[in-house]
């Protein structure tokens, strides 16, 4: 049972990992002017809520199966993602606003955050992988 749940979480963190890579590539294309602002912001805004939803599902599943350590490891980031989505000013077009994105180093800061998410999901992926292997070995 817990192996099944952890495999789901593993799949989720793999998906989030690929998503983080995709977002990072979009941001760096925008930075180097390969993409125009409107298209880049559409792409980035499309994935904000799905990412928060999947990232929140992982710690919830782990909590339900009572894996405390893994829950504590994976909980802080989704909390921050959801907080960011909920406290957007109403006049802004999504989290990545085409009018604001080129001001005040917004792109650089978004790229740093994306890199941090990438490292976080990678760590989570490997920790889950080793937990699954441990449960498989210990279960025998």
């Amino acid at each position, binding site marked *: 049972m817990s192996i099944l749940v952890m495999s789901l979480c593993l799949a989720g963190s793999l998906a989030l990992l690929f998503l983080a890579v995709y977002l990072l590539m979009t941001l760096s294309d925008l930075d180097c002017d390969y993409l125009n*602002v409107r298209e880049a912001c559409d792409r980035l805004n499309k994935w904000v809520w799905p990412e928060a939803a999947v990232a929140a599902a992982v710690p919830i599943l782990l909590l339900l199966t009572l894996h405390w350590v893994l829950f504590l490891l994976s909980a802080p980031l989704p909390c921050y993602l959801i907080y960011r989505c909920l406290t957007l*000013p*109403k*006049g*802004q*077009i999504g989290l990545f*606003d085409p*009018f604001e994105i*080129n001001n*005040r180093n917004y792109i650089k800061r978004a790229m740093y955050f994306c890199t941090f998410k990438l490292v976080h999901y990678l760590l989570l992926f490997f920790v889950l992988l080793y937990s699954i292997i441990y449960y498989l070995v210990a279960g025998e």
Partner: protein
Amino acid sequence: MPFVAPTPPLPVGPMPRQMTSPPTLQQPQWSTASAQHRENSVNLLRDRQLLRTHGSEPIETVAPPPLGHSFPAEANCNPDVMSCTMNAVPATAELLRRSRLPLGLAMHPFKDLRSLAIIQANVIVRCRDCRAYINPFVRFSSQQRWRCSLCFLDNDLPEEFLYDPISQTYGDPSRRPEIRNGTVEFIATQEYSVRPPPPATYILALDVSQVLSPDPAVAKSATAYLTAVSQTLLRCLDRLPGDTRTQLAVITFNGVLHLYKLDGPRPSLLAMPDLDGDSDLPMPEGLLVTVAECRDAIVELLESLPELEFPAVPGCCLGSALAIAHRLAQSSGGRLLLFLASRPSVGPGALSGPAGSDSDDLAGQPATDYYKRLALDCCSAQLSVDLFCVGPGHTDLASVMPIAVYSSGRVHRYPHLPDDADRLASDLGRHLTRKLGLEAVLRVRCSNGYSVAAFYGSCFVRATDLAALPCASPDAGFAIQLAVGDGAGTAGASEPVVFQAALLYTGRKGERRIRVHTLGLPVATRIEDVFAGSDQRAIIGLLAQIGAERIITGASRLSDSRDALVNAAADPLAAYARATGQRGAGGLWSPPGIRLLPLLILALLKWPAFRPSVGQLDERAAALAEVNFFVGAAPVI
């Protein structure tokens, strides 16, 4: 104690410029010993007469210093057109941080100028790496090569550059008007146009929802504004900038949209039943017509506009009107003059919910992003929207304002209408007859080591140093915040730091032009020089636009903005006391360049845009838009 005016810079006579002279930078006036510097300081606690009592302006314009014999006398552009917050630019980021002053440019790139050098050349000479235009600060290493003043790369000089058209002489490239003037305008060659120049298009969208109001005062003000608009347009119809293809369309709206077919001998009204913005136009032609061909119908419509019988449907369908206007202007771009009398209540973009209270910290922020998305569509179609708020009541200007603020338009407000009708007529006349800069882009380039951190003003920032303006206005001002990076000052103290702003636009006759402004400033390596060169006019312009933009976008609350403005006045004074060792000297010492900064910040905090509570929400919104639009150019006390 009499006020000590700062000493004016030494005049530099015109001297022949030698190509091989070593670079010499005349030391700026303020690179003096600390003791003399302390003499120039002003004690803010004791000196009360800080404003000038003679001269035409209470605050003097600080011109940047002359940079020495190697540069012509008019090398810098007019300080009213572009000026930097510091006339001696810090060489390192650490120095900038220690001074606690903002580094930026306050510019007014499309300003009406009395004299302008216009150059028509086959080849516009630009640096091959950084793409900067040739300017008075370049150095000629030989007859065929020039060194860029921004990236220090050697470039080739074309043959025709050696010929000076004004004095008809050959051989000295430094006599060309591009080298002698800080502001030049080039007639652009073919590769600067994306598409053939479109006709100048004017669309008028008038809100007539208050005309049939039961309250007689409100109905009277609505009729007054229609009269003012139609009379002004009749007066200016022949003076609209543009060539023979100039187009005009008129839309009126209350609860439904009314379109006017103008291509027959008489105008006819068509009411659009459907408020959905995606529906087709009732007819493909006849709505947007050429002024020269259909003048009679247009004149007849404008003369009958104040007495016209509109279908009595209550409400205001602003979103549909904007969608139709966008559809009409999609292929040509142009200008939309939008008159709003009441809160949008039906159709897409309707605003519902109670109006917020004015003392709320979030006042001034939009309640929906519908109009900001529309502004994005307008920018793509090169349509600029100017918003005139003519309603006596609450029109939720804060939510509708983004359509103008982000498409390089201007926001006006006339709350007391039959009395304000003259002001409306004169502002509208200025809007209609001012010079036109369609499909404009503004790019700012800086020397190595300096970069643009943020762009403030009524524009669409497409890249960090590039702003797109669907229609550039001569009254618009922009503030650019600069950052100092690692490569700054590596060229040595003898090379000036050069900032160049280039505005590419389509003029009234359909020709593509590039207006280039160049500013060269000395580098400061000591903190005393940084303070001595500070310019309070540019600083207050930059701070005001930053503050307004933070509130409009919702990035900070009103109280936080106010605190930040107060800190912006207090921090430099503390840094100055630390830097010159005057702590505890029994007074509040300030360098002469920013002696008025606390007074100006205080005045700014009393402006309706930043006041803690203003009578009406709309007033705050209009004041914020005004600060965002043009305060970068000159502060208003």
